[in-house]
């Protein structure tokens, strides 16, 4: 059966991370795209779980917003809007502004992400792209991984960027979402730990600060061009151990 074309934006996301309080855009959160029965509104942003990916692609080819980690290769030419989750987090947006305002953006960057996502490869490639946008081209990369037969899996990526910044980016597959970030710059130190910055205790009562607004997704998402895809593919190969810097 051919699905009726949906009018309005379809935003695929982790629903638990959407902060509705800080979203100004007209918003409807749906459990399934099936809930739209031919009466979609062009001014509405329909937010659905990432599991609705196939249905969304089948429904329309335009105005679909999805995280880079979800984008399948065969849909790269579909002109979908891609967003990087990290870029949508308010803490990372603020951090990026701080770095961009640094007179000498050279220092030590440490980033650690624990995620329940079993497949972290595309998430990591997207985040390497984010870091490279901030600190410049990669001059060197070195990757160490724990034995993949043992859990939790942990990966250490050591990076040297063109502007002199050195970084440790680490990922652990765990049962909770957590991000730690540190910047040791010249006369400037930035520290962030999502567990320590939770505005509500007990900690499990809120997903904040690892939440984002739909506005942040809409403003940061873009249709990726071939050059960016090539760069992301390059990062992917580096993570897979298939290319050397």
């Amino acid at each position, binding site marked *: 059966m051919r699905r009726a074309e949906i009018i309005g934006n379809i935003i695929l996301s982790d629903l638990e991370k959407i902060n509705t309080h800080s979203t100004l855009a007209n918003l409807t959160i749906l459990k399934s795209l099936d809930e739209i029965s031919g009466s979609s509104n062009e001014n509405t942003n329909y937010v659905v779980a990432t599991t609705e990916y196939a249905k969304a692609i089948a429904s329309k080819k335009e105005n679909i917003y999805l995280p880079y980690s979800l984008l399948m290769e065969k849909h790269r030419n579909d002109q979908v809007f891609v967003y990087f989750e990290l870029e949508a987090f308010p803490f990372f947006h603020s951090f990026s502004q701080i770095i961009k305002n640094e007179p000498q953006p*050279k*220092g*030590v960057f*440490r980033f*650690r992400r624990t995620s329940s996502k079993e497949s972290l490869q595309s998430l990591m490639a997207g985040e390497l792209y984010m870091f490279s946008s901030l600190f410049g081209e990669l001059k*060197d990369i*070195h990757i*160490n*991984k*724990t*034995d993949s037969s*043992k*859990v*939790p899996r*942990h990966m*250490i990526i*050591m990076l*040297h960027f063109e502007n*002199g910044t*050195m*970084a*440790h980016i*680490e990922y*652990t597959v*765990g049962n909770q979402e957590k991000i730690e970030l540190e910047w*040791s710059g*010249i*006369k400037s*130190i930035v520290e962030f730990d999502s567990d320590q910055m939770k505005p509500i205790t007990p900690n499990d009562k809120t997903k904040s600060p690892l939440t984002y607004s739909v506005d942040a997704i809409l403003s940061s998402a873009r249709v990726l061009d071939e050059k960016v895809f090539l760069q992301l593919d390059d990062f992917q190969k580096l993570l897979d151990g298939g290319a050397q810097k």
Partner: protein
Amino acid sequence: MKIGIMSFAHMHAYSYADSLEKIPHVEIAAIFDEDINRGKEVSAKYNVPHYSNQTDFLNHSMDAVIICSENSRHKEMVVNAAKAKKHILCEKPIATNVEDANEMIEVCEEHNVTLQIAYPVRFSSPIQELKKMIDQGELGEILAFRTTNRGQNPDGWFIDKAQSGGGAVLDHTVHMVDIMRWFLNEEVVEVKSYVDSYFHNIDIDDVGLLTLEFANGVIASHDASWSRFTEYPTWGDVTIEVIGTKETVKVDAFKEHFRIFSNGKKSLEHHFFGNDMDFGLILDFVNCIREGKQPSITGFDGLKSLEVALAAYESNELKEVVILKD
């Protein structure tokens, strides 16, 4: 027991001297320091004789010495003290090169005196608690470590390579490598690093990132630097996270603190109230000598952690992974 102190060039000497004064039946016998002003000052502070001649000092009646000189002079003082039959606690790093470290170990063995290396982090209460958890199997099999040791630029001889042997990477890598070796009972076999000088416009490294691999496949990241400026709330940090198959545990050795806010130059200051790890180190050294035990931190421990720090410089220079023998 009488213990002498050889040089107050390293600031830890003051804390070690204070610790000796707190231990019953232990006294500071004498002080050796070629810096006459500094020697006289500490002599007056601790009310003990001061010598500016090493031979005269070592002829003074004492059981052991604590060496807190510039790193480049550790070998000379250890060798002289060992020949004078004094047990030795030597400030870290054991030496500035592997050859000197090996010679120091051999001379101490030859003269049957204790050589202990000053790694006070082993005596931090939360670090010891973590060690106990690991030994009891609470974390399961260790898969990875994440460690940091960042502080302020100590300046003076520390930033003169001829006297220190290296900057922040040497100064702040050996502690955490020692802790990881202690937890794991394995040696580092691979070192990859980036070393640079960012923060202080000095001719020696003040920053380094290291990625390590141990013989059993455990991987580790380490951040060593003098990146903390004086306005930062504390002098620096010592942290370790152990990722195990059963549990992941993180320890911050200086976490136990008050936050003090004021309208001065430093608007926020961390006031540490946890255990005194320097005292723990000195008490352990005294007990090892008293009981005739093997030192809890040997010259070999000092050598192996030094090798990793030196390999970090080599890796940065060669821009490749350096392989160490297990």
